[in-house]
């Protein structure tokens, strides 16, 4: 329990929020995935550049969202950079959260979004290549579809 709202973020979250890694976009990316929706207040887009051996040569992201949304996108890209797509697929919201030393309860959905964005980019890559990546499911979210499932806890601060 932290009375101050601001202090709920770990140092790592703040670091990744203030100095996001891999922010930007990739021209002619091997795969691009966008998840979330503006109505809920967060959208993530992940760009992957994948070599012939299935290794992620480069990864970039763009995110519209809160501090945690930016930090989770940044961390997710760090976790997969240089890795094989199989390892990228194994990256879960929990691995993103752990790498960030945790997230406030109300921000856990941001880490789910980061996982979904990565999967969506991998899916796009698989579609473009005409391959199947074992264990990868079609992403459900799209920025123009309905609201994604949030894991919010009703807790409001007001002045």
């Amino acid at each position, binding site marked *: 329990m*932290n009375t101050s*709202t*601001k202090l709920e973020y770990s140092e790592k979250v703040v670091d990744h929020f203030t100095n996001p890694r891999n922010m930007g976009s990739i021209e002619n990316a091997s795969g691009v995935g966008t998840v979330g929706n503006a109505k809920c207040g967060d959208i993530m887009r992940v760009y992957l550049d994948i070599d012939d051996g299935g290794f992620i040569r480069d990864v970039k992201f763009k995110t519209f969202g*809160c*501090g945690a949304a930016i930090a989770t996108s940044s961390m997710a890209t760090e976790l997969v950079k240089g890795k094989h797509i199989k390892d990228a697929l194994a990256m879960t919201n929990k691995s993103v959260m752990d790498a960030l030393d*945790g997230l406030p309860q109300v921000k856990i959905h941001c880490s789910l979004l980061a996982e979904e964005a990565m999967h969506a980019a991998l899916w796009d890559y698989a579609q473009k290549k005409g391959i199947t990546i074992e264990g990868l499911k079609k992403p459900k979210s799209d920025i123009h579809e309905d609201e994604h499932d949030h894991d919010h806890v009703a807790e409001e601060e007001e002045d």
Partner: protein
Amino acid sequence: MNIKRTYGTNMPKTIYLDNAATTAVKREVFDAMAPYFTEQYGNPSSIHEFGARCGVACDEARAKVAKVIGANPQEIYFTSGGTESDNWAIKSTAYAKKEKGRHIITTRIEHHAVMETCEFLKRDGFDVTFLDVDDQGLVDPAKLEAAIRPDTILISVIYANNEIGTVQPIAEIGRIARARGVLFHTDAVQAFGHVPIDVDAENIDLLSASGHKIHGPKGIGFLYMRKGVKLPPLMHGGHHERGRRAGTLNVPGIVGLGKAAEIAGAEMAANAERVTALRDRLIKGMLSEIPHSRLNGHPTKRLPGNANLSFRFVEGESLLMMVDEKGVSASTGSACASGSLDPSHVLLAIGLPHEIAHGSLRFSLSEDNTEEEIDYAVEAVREVVERLRSMSPLYEDAVKAGGA
């Protein structure tokens, strides 16, 4: 979870633009309060000189507070703040008048202290009408009048909104309420001491206010209750406050509130002029420096210190955190900042789409701010919005579509 934080330690001097959240206690206010902690610590209820002196101090404060709103000191009841006053006014009216009727009229842009109280009463069998407001946040008095029914027992309208600053046509609403014989409560927490209020001229029966929005202390406020309006207590207990509000008086708080009210009343016109000029400088600066920005609320019928703006393609909490890094303290109506699913109910009530409501910031000024601070804040927000837009997939799409 590691929650230790270091950021903020190397921050430049803070530019505090969150005076609607709370204000600094003025030096004079603090000095007036100080003796009542360690020297004059008597209980006004005690029958000895020591207690009586504190009672006198409370009554002086009562008179000072009453003067600011044109009330009689006997009509002022000290409470723990705006939230308690709102709860008291609304719940006690509801329970005292439930035989007459169970209908309450309020608006869609109330503070949570009123909104949640009304929601609570709804669950308890009361019928609540939440009036819509227009796109600048104004209540339409004609619509309010049309909503009155034979079983309407209370009208509660926020005097000036805490998020968008819109000041309501309170005198007109008061006239209607009086003519129709319905009690009229207003949450004046943001208005008290900032804009002129006259409870008689405006036909206000019940008014809530708080100390900490006028450079007074936190945890102290009052409910104005018109003579003849006899609401039962919300706090039951001893015979404090003429049997209406139990609990040993918060003497230092009351003295502080009195002093703050006295200063706010005396300096209101001068402060309003100065703060309005700063506010308009900020609004003009932001709107001209930052593309795709808009002002929320009414352009002129607004609190002197309130500027609420939306910046498209960016999200409020990240905006807030990044301007905080630059030493600027503001507030946001974004959902992400509150931990709820939806952005501010006030921004939605004035018709902002979710995505634009998410990207809003509130700057609330005080007379202590300077032009240099405002100019710094404009530049800080401009830089941060630009940076966040460079990170925003929404902005990228808008640029590609030729819309940005």
